[in-house]
């Protein structure tokens, strides 16, 4: 900037001051209402939950500060540690199945570009269904007496042992049934997203590879999948977060929620039971904070994976 001589360029100074205000203050002025909302509805509850997790609390009335006692309590609770492990296994199963199935569907859509428009709408339909409603329908489908799943297994696949088989009597089959329901619900979004990603991988690179004699599998494995890797990372991350937060299906499909006998308790459900059935918001807050930290770690991992990708 050239030095100003007062009076010589009176007009310039005022635009510059104006410029500073516009550049530095005005954006904040515009942002303030939104920031206030974000801080109010995101920041405050998060801070409050963390604060609660360090306090004794019962019946929505806060008790004294007790340091890390809530955290010690939950990790000493065998049902919590079991739920932690169970949720992790469940999330791994859901994410792996979701991504593989979605990729398969995306490839089918990609191979049939004409039908894809209609097909992708059909594929997306399950996603539009409320989770509670789909959970109830899946519970009926897995019913031991009248369910269509047992009927199919017996009459189509000849598996006689599934005649009157009770899926929700013990933990493992109940988890399988819930996994099926959750995957059914999460596949559509991921599949359509991956389909969109795959659409962008038809250019010269693939053409060149084909000329060089690469077969379809090699093209997919070596070229197209690496090209949509950022998208795969995002989808895996989102699916992981969704799987860890699964709640509705567990609530409506098991009796009692998380049962029989604790065998389908996952972290979100246990947190909810602790908060709203046991009315112990201190412990529940501690559980929520642990889940929050775990999912934050997943997000950080995702950011780093993406950064390496750029490199």
């Amino acid at each position, binding site marked *: 900037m050239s030095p100003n001589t007062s009076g010589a360029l009176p007009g310039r100074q005022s635009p510059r001051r104006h410029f500073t205000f516009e550049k530095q203050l005005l954006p904040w002025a515009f942002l303030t209402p939104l920031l206030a909302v974000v801080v109010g509805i995101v920041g405050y509850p998060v801070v*409050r939950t963390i604060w609660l997790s360090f306090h004794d609390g019962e019946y929505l009335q806060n008790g004294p500060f007790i340091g890390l006692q809530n955290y010690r309590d939950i990790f000493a609770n065998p049902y919590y540690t079991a739920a932690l492990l169970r949720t992790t296994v469940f999330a791994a199963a859901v994410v792996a199945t979701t991504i593989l199935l979605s990729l398969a569907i995306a490839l089918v859509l990609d191979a049939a570009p004409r039908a894809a428009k209609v097909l992708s709408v059909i594929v997306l339909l399950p996603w539009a269904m409320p989770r509670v409603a789909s959970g109830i329908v899946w519970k009926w489908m897995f019913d031991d007496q009248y369910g269509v799943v047992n009927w199919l297994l017996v009459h189509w696949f000849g598996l006689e042992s599934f005649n009157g088989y009770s899926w*929700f009597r013990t933990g493992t089959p109940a988890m399988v049934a819930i996994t099926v329901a959750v995957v059914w619900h999460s596949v559509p979004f991921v599949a359509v997203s991956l389909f969109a990603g795959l659409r962008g991988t038809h250019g010269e690179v693939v053409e060149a590879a084909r000329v060089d004699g690469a077969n379809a599998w090699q093209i997919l494995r070596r070229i197209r999948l690496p090209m949509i890797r950022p998208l795969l990372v995002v989808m895996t991350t989102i699916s992981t977060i969704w799987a860890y937060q699964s709640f509705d299906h567990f*609530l409506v499909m098991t*009796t009692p929620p998380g*049962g029989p006998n604790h065998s389908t308790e996952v972290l979100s459900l246990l947190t909810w*039971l602790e908060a709203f*059935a046991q*009315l112990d918001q201190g412990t529940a807050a501690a559980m*929520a904070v642990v889940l929050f930290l775990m999912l934050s770690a997943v997000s950080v991992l995702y950011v780093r994976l993406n950064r390496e990708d750029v490199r």
Partner: protein
Amino acid sequence: MRARNIWRGRAAVAIGLVGALALAACGGAKDSPSGNGSGEIKGAIDFWMGDPIGDTQQPIMQKLANDYAAAHPGTKVNLRFLGKDAHQTYLTSIAGGSVPCVALIGNTWTPEFAALNALNVYADDPKTLRGTYVPGMIDSTIYKGKSYAVPYDTGVRALIYRKDMLESIGKSAAPATWEELRADALAIQAKHQGVNGFGIIGGAHWYYLPVIWNWGGEIAKQNGDKWVSEAGSPQAVQAFQFYADLLTKDKLSPAGASAWTGADVDKSFGLGQTAMMIGGSWDLRTILKQAPDLESKLGTAVLPKGPGGNNDTFAGGSNLAVFRECNNKPVANDFVKFMMSKENLVPVTSNLGLLPATNDALAQEKSTGSFSTPLLKAYAEQADHTRSTPPVANWGKVEGANAIVNAMQSIMSGQKSADAAMKELSDKINQAIG
């Protein structure tokens, strides 16, 4: 009552923890009417209730509220229906200090709200209420020796059975004892292929916790100021063992019945696949709606007795409570009196399909009212044989944690012996209520 107890367990669909706590923190808006310290019947009150049977009940309650205001010029009753989240709404409003004046609350919530110091004392000595109200319902209003609410309506369960199936094994009367029920159910199963002798409900504790009483045991006993669990007692262990054996040894229902709820048995009974079951008058309605042609084949009877010589069961229902922070108590108390008068009480309870909780109105319902029909008479008789869950503030925690259901399911699945499961349950109960 069943509907309310379902609210407790599943009170809300995922409002986030933080969301509700934030609500609790800022729920301070006072919309209560202006104070009335003079004892005059004037001004407005807020009256809250859930609607356990849905919308059909709302116009009836609204009419009551309007009638009251019409009879007392200068007053107004602001009626609010809380829906299925009622329990949580009460808790958050108690924490936030903006409570209604009068509320119709689930009977099992009464000690809990009293412990939160939210309710007005109704009677310093609950003994004075004996004779006026149904016994089990008085018990549900008591916390630390005082009564905090007026028993309003009550619902009990009784035995529902297929007369034709019992006749097919040469029986003309319903089983009077649990042992007899077991034998009859086995005989029916032997004779009718594909029929469940008895509908077992592993997923809801209302169906087997009272069996402890039938075996002569107690759920908890008062010891000085404290309540101590009796779930580990031999009677309790034997009672749970007996109920679990009905499923595991006698196979009176499909294996999946360990996770069944009342609705599953209603469905199975309605399809003609179950011969006997325990259910409330509301279950009877559901079944007859589903299968109207069953009506001529249906019978009801009081519950079977156990070795303890009684057939006591839970009294479900609702109590009318006046909140401590109500600032128009003259109108609140007067409105409660109005609600409790027989001519205002009976139309409401009969519409709900429940029994009135005053002996006077109950007698009328039994002799000439809606419970004098052959099918419903058993429910009125069963109402004389009721008890309440232990009147401790934290009983809700025991139910909320599904501790009782988990104990029964772990016996049914063979994961634990009855002894071990009941010992664990006993510890859990003591942890919660001690």
